């Protein structure tokens, strides 16, 4: 029977499955970070359990690290305690750690692919909802809670109920100025924040095939914002070209053998999904979120919607609360909204190509008066490569802050936060109330749109932007 990409990976990882129970699934790669792992290690100590497979576990520090020039002293005592605990836990349990001195440190979902740890056909988990990012390689990757982190550390397995499958087909070609971020924001706007709950999503179609690996990561990254268990894209030559030669990728004959095996992963012709959604990429405009979840999104040339136009009372009430929090009036032009802050970074949009795209807009311009703009590379490697291309100079000359790598203002666990009432154009993934700082107002956009907003002081339709020659 023809199988989907998801089914092939699932079936190959079932250790055991008794009728009426979830399956025991083997986990190939477990990524950990300082925020969701300390309680798991503490329980291992209490119960006297060991790590089953230290070689399948890798740790980084990302969520709460300051992005000031290194070395620095971490002033926040609780952040320091958490980072110290990570060092101690990795040492005691034998887990390789990319700490703040490591050249490989960075956001967990940026460094996994960079180091070639993330590969097609794998099962990958991490105590972080944006683990869906790794699905861009044709892996089954999903976020877990701390109890499950402990479970994987102790057993290298997880009990999992088999999710249903959903195909999201983006047919046609996207227009100029429309990025991977716009495609995924549009998808979430169409199917809603709970639209994919219970499903492993596979993105297919011409517009998906045309994406680079880094663009595919942006798409899969935000699968969780539609509620999906996982988001995946079948591997192809784009995937193999990205992986070839990376530190943990197979080398020589093993590489050829791996590619041969990976070529068998894409969904078979005629494979059935439990649900299918077909969308036209050509209809997608650059997107800007106006509300307090990623499904509250509109085209940049649209206006802030009127809650009165919503028939469902729960949705209407929700939109009213969102507009109140965001300080927006129904009918206001989105492109006219003035901003105070710009954040280019996060596991959604902090890779080299994201920074290059933003720098193309920024080159030769200045950040608008009154706007504070920052660029936070996703990893130290991204930062080095960007600097080798002179991107740091372009950003700095324009008035951007060029910072060290980490999750930074995506969730504001470190000192990078919004003040109450500040409006931010952000390339991150969540516009929840208070996400970037209590009272802060987040609008999710692509790196190009964030860059243009920084220079203009308000949102701009990037399709009408003219870069300086």
């Amino acid at each position, binding site marked *: 029977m023809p199988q989907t990409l998801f089914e092939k990976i699932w079936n190959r990882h079932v250790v055991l499955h008794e009728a009426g*129970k979830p399956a025991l699934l083997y986990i190939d790669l477990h990524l950990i970070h300082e925020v969701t792992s*300390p309680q798991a290690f503490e329980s291992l100590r209490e*119960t006297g359990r060991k790590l089953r497979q230290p070689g399948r576990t890798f740790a980084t520090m990302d969520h709460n690290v300051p992005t000031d020039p290194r070395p620095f002293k971490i002033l*926040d005592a609780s952040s320091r305690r958490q980072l110290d*605990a990570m060092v101690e836990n990795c040492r005691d349990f034998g887990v390789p750690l990319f700490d703040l001195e490591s050249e490989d440190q960075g956001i967990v979902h940026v460094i996994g692919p960079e180091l070639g740890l993330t590969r097609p056909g794998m099962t990958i988990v991490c105590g972080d909802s944006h683990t869906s990012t790794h699905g861009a390689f044709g892996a089954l990757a999903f976020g877990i809670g701390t109890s499950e982190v402990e479970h994987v550390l102790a057993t290298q*397995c997880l*009990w999992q109920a088999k999710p249903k499958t959903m195909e999201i087909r983006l047919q046609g070609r996207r227009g100029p100025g429309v990025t991977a971020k716009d495609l995924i924001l549009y998808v979430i706007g169409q199917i809603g924040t709970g639209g994919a709950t219970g499903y492993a999503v596979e993105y297919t179609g011409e517009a998906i095939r045309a994406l680079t690996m880094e663009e595919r990561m942006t798409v899969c990254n935000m699968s969780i914002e539609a509620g999906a268990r996982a988001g995946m894209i079948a591997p192809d030559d784009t995937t193999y070209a990205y992986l070839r030669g990376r530190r943990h990728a197979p080398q020589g004959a093993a590489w050829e053998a791996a590619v041969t095996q990976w070529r068998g992963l894409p969904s078979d012709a005629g494979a059935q999904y439990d649900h299918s959604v077909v969308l036209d990429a050509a209809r997608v405009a650059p997107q800007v979120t106006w509300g307090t979840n990623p499904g509250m999104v509109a085209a940049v040339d649209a206006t802030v919607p009127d809650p009165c136009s919503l028939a469902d009372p729960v949705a209407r009430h*929700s939109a009213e609360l969102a507009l109140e929090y965001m300080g927006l009036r129904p009918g206001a032009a989105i492109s006219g909204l003035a901003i105070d802050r710009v954040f280019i970074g996060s596991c959604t949009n902090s890779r080299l190509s994201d920074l290059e795209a933003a720098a193309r807009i920024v080159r030769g311009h200045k950040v608008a008066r009154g706007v504070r703009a920052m660029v936070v590379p996703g990893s130290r490697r991204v930062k080095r490569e960007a600097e080798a291309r002179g991107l740091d100079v372009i950003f700095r000359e324009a008035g951007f802050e060029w910072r060290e790598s980490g999750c930074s203002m995506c969730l504001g666990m470190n000192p990078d936060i919004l003040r109450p009432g500040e409006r931010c154009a952000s390339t991150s993934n969540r516009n929840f109330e*208070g996400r970037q700082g209590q009272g802060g107002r987040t609008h999710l956009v692509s790196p190009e749109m964030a860059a243009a907003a920084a220079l203009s002081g308000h949102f701009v339709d990037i399709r009408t932007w003219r870069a300086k020659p």
Partner: protein
Amino acid sequence: MKPFHSITAVAAPLDRPNVDTDQIIPKQFLKSIVRSGLAAGLFYDWRRLPDGRPNPDFVLNQPLYQRAGILLARENFGCGSSREHAPWALKDFGILCIIAPSFADIFYNNCFKNGMLPVILPADAVDELFRAAAARPGLQITVDLAAQSVSLAEGRGFHFELDAYRKQCLLEGLDDIALTLRHEAAITAFEARI
């Protein structure tokens, strides 16, 4: 883990959809390295006014609901981050059961790992419970896991569905890891094949 059988408690109505885990427990409380004491951060931004005083309008600040054991919620409750601090904070406050038309996947799963019961009821049933809670503030609800029922004192009741395996684990308070390690041989055999 402590087994969960049933609960009869005051149900606090939280009438908004898509309540995300950043609201349930904001980032500044994620720096803890223990599981306890997180009630102080529960719905922190909603429980306080901008000047830091308690917000008297927020449901869990009202005297009637300070001992709530059940939370009545709307669709897609617990969306967003995978932080298990969200169920830890609810549990630390005393809430062991959340009733909603739908939950985000990771949050739903995390509840079971902590001896908490997330109950999915049809939207119209949840609506009815919200109306009952509005008509009689401080309303008590009984949730019986074995019977898979939600009932009000006057006899109105609803049946809910859940996975039989999750139910058994919760009723018996099973330690997931101990359960898995019984299959050590199967895991070792699997590892030998890959």
